[in-house]
């Protein structure tokens, strides 16, 4: 790309001083955008990036498909007698696990952006400070939704039947996306805190694997030793998996939903301010 520099710039159209001067004549500046509007604009940026670099959707499509197929046929026969029966239990769990897992790419994209000059430009804008971060997460919420739809579709093909109907499925996805949005603040924090993309990936794996596997996604925790049950039963992923499983089955488990939303709120309250502190200090 750089070798083309000289040839291209000689062909560049000249700068038009007159129209430039015309543009510079100070017009009344528009009022600052609201927090919501600035966040949505950053969300639009995330969508544009998906449009220009569609490869990044690989992790929200191929990866979840792989997860569903693998776990259904790997554990189905042994744990529930047949894959067909197991998928009723497994699918909402795999849905939760996959989406929570792909949240970690948020940290990576924040981290790669910091290296570039555009981050400095955003930080000198007179806008609501968290909107840059919220924008990432709004774009990611779209990716989580895509992943959820992909997994559900594959699940239905394999025989998953949600008894909660359309309403149950929609509420389940909404709950999951809301939780993932809140959970992602951990990754924005690491994305700003750690120096390289590799270290962000490394730390993310350390957090995400124990958190997702040590849950009730695959099996009922009652067969686990007591100390592990204590962890698993109180894990936010377990609460979320139970809530999504219940809602999609039409049971509407109010306590599990409350626990999931409570955890989500806690994540935002703890990691949101830390993220913003790092963002302002960077």
């Amino acid at each position, binding site marked *: *790309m750089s070798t083309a520099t000289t040839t291209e710039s000689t062909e560049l*159209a000249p700068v038009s001083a007159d129209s430039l001067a015309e543009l510079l004549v*100070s017009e009344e500046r528009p009022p600052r955008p609201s927090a919501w509007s600035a966040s949505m604009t950053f969300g639009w940026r995330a969508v544009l990036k998906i449009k220009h670099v569609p490869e990044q959707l690989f992790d929200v499509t191929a990866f979840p498909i792989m997860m569903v197929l693998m776990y259904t046929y790997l554990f189905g026969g042994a744990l529930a007698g047949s894959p067909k029966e197991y998928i009723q239990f497994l699918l909402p769990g795999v849905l939760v696990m996959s989406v929570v897992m792909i949240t970690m790419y948020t940290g990576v994209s924040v981290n790669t952006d910091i290296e570039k000059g555009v981050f400095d430009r955003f930080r000198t804008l007179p806008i609501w400070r968290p909107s840059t971060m919220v924008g990432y997460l709004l774009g990611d919420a779209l990716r989580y939704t895509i992943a959820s739809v992909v997994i559900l579709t594959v699940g239905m093909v394999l025989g998953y039947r949600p008894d909660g109907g359309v309403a149950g499925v929609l509420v389940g996805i909404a709950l999951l996306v809301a939780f993932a949005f809140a959970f992602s603040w951990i990754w924005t924090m690491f994305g700003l805190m750690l120096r390289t993309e590799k270290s962000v990936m490394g730390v993310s794996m350390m957090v995400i694997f124990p958190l997702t596997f040590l849950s009730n996604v695959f099996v009922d925790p009652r067969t686990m030793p007591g100390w592990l049950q204590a962890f698993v039963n109180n894990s936010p992923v377990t609460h979320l998996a139970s809530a999504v499983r219940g809602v999609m089955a039409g049971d509407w488990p109010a306590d599990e939903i409350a626990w999931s939303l409570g955890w989500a709120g806690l994540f935002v309250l703890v990691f949101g301010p830390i993220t913003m502190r790092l963002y302002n200090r960077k």
Partner: protein
Amino acid sequence: MSTQTSGLAIETAGLVKTFGETRAVDGVDLAVPAGTVYGVLGPNGAGKTTTVKMLATLLRPDGGEAHVFGHDIVREADAVRGRVSLTGQYASVDEDLTGTENLVLLGRLLGHGKSAARVRAARLLEAFGLTEAAGKQVKHYSGGMRRRIDIAASILNTPDLLFLDEPTTGLDPRSRNQVWDIVRAVVAQGTTVLLTTQYLDEADQLASRIAVIDHGRVIAEGTKGELKASVGAGSVHLRLRDPDQRPLAADLLRRVLDAQVQDESDPVALTARLGTAASHDTAAEQAARALGELARAGVTVDNFSLGQPSLDEVFLALTGHDTHAPGSGRSHDPKDEVAA
């Protein structure tokens, strides 16, 4: 939006920023008059970018204070952000997005409505000669185009103060001239520009006042005339036809001009640095006299030029060490030499 109040766009007192053991900025005092181009001149690692980043609210100072249009850069950062724009050393736009998308994005973030942002983006792209490239991702832009889109992004809302951090580093001479034209147009409309550069000629072309900065300190400050007078009248560069005549020519120049003469790596080239105190004549008069003497002595001069003091010379004069002296702890940057 005008800035007639105190007359100062930037005022800093004892500004300090440390990174670990290094004092990147070590007590910088600046007073930048509104409505002018103010040049901050210094080699790589002198603390120019760090100073700009503090003034643009990207970095928090560790000591001292600074005001931009009367607003404290730490306590009133948001008010400062409302009036400044920054064009960094590297394109401060999103490389994955197209030129249009970048400008619309920033337009929206500055509070323009959807259609207003689109109109303004299109007009800016046209004024900057980028209409054809408007739909291309910025990562496919050439260096000159990147710099243009970057500056365009900085003037989406005409800022009261524009920071240009080494705006022409890495550009070919033609693109560099175009950037200079843009800067002149921006200042003509009343925007104050703080320009950092490694090149004396760039500061000379654009700035009305210049601060020379080294090791995080301002080592000289003044108008262009004042600075140059302190550095010397300039240099005479000669290329001879016959390399064997070089010792003779050097000897002659030393006597006639009372100047420091230096052999260049090219065997036919030499440079004489003109002093100030020794002579009341202008640089041109001294050079003319030298040429006459050389002709009389039978030395054939192929090529002759009278140059401004280079950044290296400014540094030598001001600090006693050149910009890449072994002790100065900086890496050798070939760009300095291209400019010099």
